[in-house]
Each structure stands twice: as structure tokens, then as C-alpha cells.
């Protein structure tokens, strides 16, 4: 904390920067929900937050949430409705950005939250898609939040729960997904973005106090760097003030 912010706070601010003003955003839980609040309080006051349980909000909930259906997320919602009414907006092309997490991600941004090992006899049975597959397929920009460990950043996921660029190149479009795909993968060490016609994830920025060598060492494929690779800009005073206003109890410090 010598820098005045935690790694998680840097990730939250980096996630907030992925939200543009006026965006319609599938928010998800935990880190992205705080990022959504920071974006609303700083550069994106007109963003709209969607929750797959059937809730739409303008301002974030006034208290910390454990689940998206908790009472603070219901009170003052813009819309309390069904899953189909909210998730259907994905197929309708109305969703600009979506956040998801994952246990495993590969070099084309495919994410596994279902099975580690064989489907018929998994070594680890993970909870499954929830709404993640739908969001990954249909949001115009997907932002994934994943802890950067070598066993999570693999050459090829064993099971694609949520499609990224599949086998790279045009394969996503050939599967019927003409738009969308990962725009950013935010980790505790760096930010990756797709690059070039292959759509492979390349290193786009390295967080302060982390190095390219360290990031490569914790990545399960031969990670390349994008032209113009830089350091992730640290949170500004304004971004930190917004974050502290939301995270009153300091859960993310």
C-alpha cells in the first residue's frame, strides 16, 4: 500500500475505465460492481447497469452486496423484472459491455467456468455458466477479470463455457458471433487485449511494480506484447476518491 492504493483498487479503476459514458453494462458481482460505481461517479454518469436476475439500475446500490438479488439492489432500482427481459437485451444488441470472471482463460480469451478435466469425469466440477456464456457471446465488449496464475492462463481451455475469439482469426464470426469478443482481460499483474487479425491476447499494459518478465512467467502461452506497451496508469486522485466514497468499509483496500 506504499503507492496509496491496493492491487484490487487498481484493478477496479482499470475496470471502471472500460465503461464509457452512456454504456449499457452487464455488471456482475464483486469487483465489477464497484468499478461500475466508480465509472458512474467519474467519467460515465449516464451508464446503465444490468443484472441477470432481472434488475436494472442507474446508481449503484447504497450498501455492499453479497448477491445481485439482495435488498439494497432492489431498493431504488430502475426496473425489477424478469431474467428474459434483461438478458434478452443482449441478443437485441443493446448491451455495450459485460464483465465476467473465470477459473481458466486461454490465449484467445475463451473462458472456462464449467469443467476442469473430462466432462464425463471432471477433476474439478465448477459451478457452470450462469449468464456468462450469453454475456460473452453477445455483449459488444467483454471485460474479463481473472487472477493471473499460470494454471489459469492456459494455451487452450479444456471447455469453452464463454466464447472469446475461439480459435482466433475469423473463427468467432464463423460460429455465428459476428460482433463482440474480449476487449480487455484485467488481472492482478497486467491488462491483456486482443491484437491483430489473429485476435490473440497480447500484453497491453503492466501494472506498477510488476514486470513483463514476471507476467510472461505466469502465463501459460508465449505471451507477446502489443506495440506501445506501457505501465497501467495508477488511479487518479478523483478515481480514488470515488472508490473510497463507494467502498466505505475499505473491503477492497
Amino acid at each position, binding site marked *: 500500500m506504499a503507492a496509496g492504493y491496493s492491487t484490487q483498487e487498481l484493478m477496479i479503476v482499470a475496470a471502471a475505465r472500460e465503461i464509457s459514458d452512456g454504456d449499457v453494462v452487464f455488471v456482475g458481482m464483486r469487483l465489477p460492481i464497484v468499478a461500475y460505481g466508480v465509472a458512474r461517479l467519474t467519467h460515465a454518469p449516464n451508464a446503465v447497469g444490468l443484472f441477470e436476475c432481472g434488475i436494472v439500475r442507474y446508481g449503484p446500490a447504497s450498501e455492499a452486496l453479497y448477491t445481485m438479488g*439482495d435488498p439494497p439492489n432492489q431498493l431504488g432500482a430502475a426496473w425489477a423484472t424478469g431474467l428474459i427481459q434483461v438478458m434478452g437485451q443482449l441478443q437485441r444488441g443493446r448491451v455495450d459491455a459485460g464483465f465476467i470472471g473465470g477459473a481458466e482463460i486461454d490465449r484467445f480469451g475463451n473462458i472456462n467456468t464449467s469443467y476442469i478435466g473430462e466432462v464425463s469425469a471432471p477433476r474439478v466440477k465448477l459451478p457452470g455458466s450462469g449468464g456468462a456464456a*450469453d454475456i460473452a*457471446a453477445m455483449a459488444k465488449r467483454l471485460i474479463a477479470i481473472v487472477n493471473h496464475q499460470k494454471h489459469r492462463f492456459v494455451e487452450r481451455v479444456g471447455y469453452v463455457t464463454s466464447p472469446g475469439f475461439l480459435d482466433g482469426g475469423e473463427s468467432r464470426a464463423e460460429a*455465428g458471433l459476428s460482433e463482440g469478443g474480449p476487449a480487455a482481460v484485467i488481472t492482478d499483474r497486467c491488462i491483456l487485449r486482443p491484437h491483430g487479425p489473429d485476435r490473440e491476447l497480447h500484453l497491453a499494459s503492466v501494472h506498477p511494480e510488476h514486470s513483463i518478465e514476471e507476467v510472461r512467467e505466469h502465463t501459460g502461452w508465449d505471451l507477446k506484447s502489443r506495440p506501445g506497451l506501457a505501465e497501467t496508469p495508477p488511479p487518479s486522485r478523483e478515481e480514488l476518491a470515488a472508490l473510497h466514497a463507494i467502498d466505505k468499509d475499505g473491503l477492497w483496500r
Partner: protein
Amino acid sequence: MKDKLVPLRAAISDHLDRGNAVVLGACLEPDIPFAATYEIIRQEIRGLNVIAPISDASTDMLIGAGCVSEITGAWVGNVSGGLGHNYRRACEVGEPGPVTVHDHSNFSLGMALLAGAYGMPYLPMRSILGSDILQSNPQFRRAENPFSETREPVILVPPLQPDVAFLPVQRADRQGNNHHWGNRGLVQEAALAAGKVVLLADEIVAPEVIASDPSRVLLPGYLVTAVCHAPGGVHPAPMTGRWRRDNAFFEAYHRESRTRDGFLAWLDEWVLGVPDHAAYRAKLGAQFDDLRIADSAPAATTHYGMT
């Protein structure tokens, strides 16, 4: 109209059979009928196909208790802890028995229940394109959109019509007319798709209360099979305007269910060793009462006039 108010124990023994396809809450994280989950376990009703978008730890408990042979679902775990330990044990080592998983996304499960609700032979959708859900669940079909001039792959989702749906509502009358508010997840689709609907009403009210606001009705009483008075029957899940989520209870379940023996001890303490929901509430004591939402945030008065 017929009086449909019955004890939860009778509703389950009369309406849920071994091998049934069952919905236990379809609102995602809130409004999960845990009181029904516990009673199904006590009555040892086995071989169930649990249809679950996200029913938090309810599905994991039923799996561990040996009641489940199939899961038709998008997500099974414990929202507080992530992984569902009983789900893991069943899929990884077949303990206490194997379960067959029919993988869905939330939206594909929604389409399946929507098709079931309105008698549609199937529904086309696009948002599971590219996912290996299409590989692990052979129930889906690929097709081309016949109305598109360019090649446009679509996925056809077969309908789901659960035998029984157990659905919590804030209030109902004795005939099964009811009010539900807050987010609805797939509750309405599940209710209309199911062969039988059993409501767990947090409060039983006079028919005039429900009739005063027909726009808040989840489904009218003629489509309801039975109504049970189960105050706090969603515990540890939340219910809008009534109950906060018992996060500590979910976390304790996650900790204690980490091992098979730990789960069995948990099951003895909170389900098998407790005769019914009233005793469960009494056992929770002040912990339960503290979860009651006490502050008032009323909606604006709504008028339905004629002249």
C-alpha cells in the same frame, strides 16, 4: 374458490413424486424455497431432476442428501463460497451418487421454460453460440435461420415443463392468488410451464388485498395447486421487502460441507434433526428475527378506478 392452504409437509407428500422434474425457486439468488428443500430431504424423495437457473446452495444440499439424479441448470454452487462441494463430489467421484448434468446458460434455460410455458415446440436463440454447452448438452439442435438472407446459425432450445414448481411469494390468499415483487428471474416462466405450482407464502392475507392490485400478481390462483404458509421459508435466501440474506449461514454451510462427514453433520443439525420449518425458525432464534426487514420503503399508492 377452493381453499388451497395446506401444510408444507402435506403439499410435498401429495404433489412431489420420486423422479419428478422440480423447480425450487427460479428467481436466481432471492426467493429460494429452502423450507421446501429441507422438507423434500426429510421425506427422502429421490431421483429428482432439479431445474435450476441459480438456486444458490439449495441444489447442492439436495445433491448431498441423495435426492438428485439429474440437474438441468446453468449454475450450481454457493453464491457466498463459489463452488458447491456436494455438486463437486457427485460429479467428480459419484458421492453420494452420480448426477447427470444437462448444461444450460441462464438465457437458454429461460428459453426452455418460456417455450414450456406457452406450448411452443422449441425456441431459437443465439447467445450460446460458440459455447461448449452445445457439446456437453446434446439436447440442443443447430439450425439456420430460415428468414435470413445470409447464413445465420441459430440454436433450437427444447421446452421444459417441470412437474412441480415450488415458488415463494410475499403474500397470498387461501385460494392461491398472490403478490410477488422485486426481481423475477424466471419465476413467471417456471410457474406457467410447471404442471403443478406450490406457493410458499410469507404471509396469508384476505382475498381483497390481492384483488386490490392485480398488476402485482405472479399468477392467478386457478393456476396454483397448493399454498403453504411459510414465513421466512426462504431462509437463508433474501426476499424483497421481507428478509435479508443470511450471509453467515451460507458461509457456514460452505465451510461445513467441504467434507462429506461435515455435510452429513450439517444436515443432521439443520434438516434431519429439525421436524419442520417452525422448529427451524425457533432453532435460529434471534439470528432469524434479526434478518427481518424492519424499515419501510412503501411504493406509491396505485389506483384502479372505473368512474
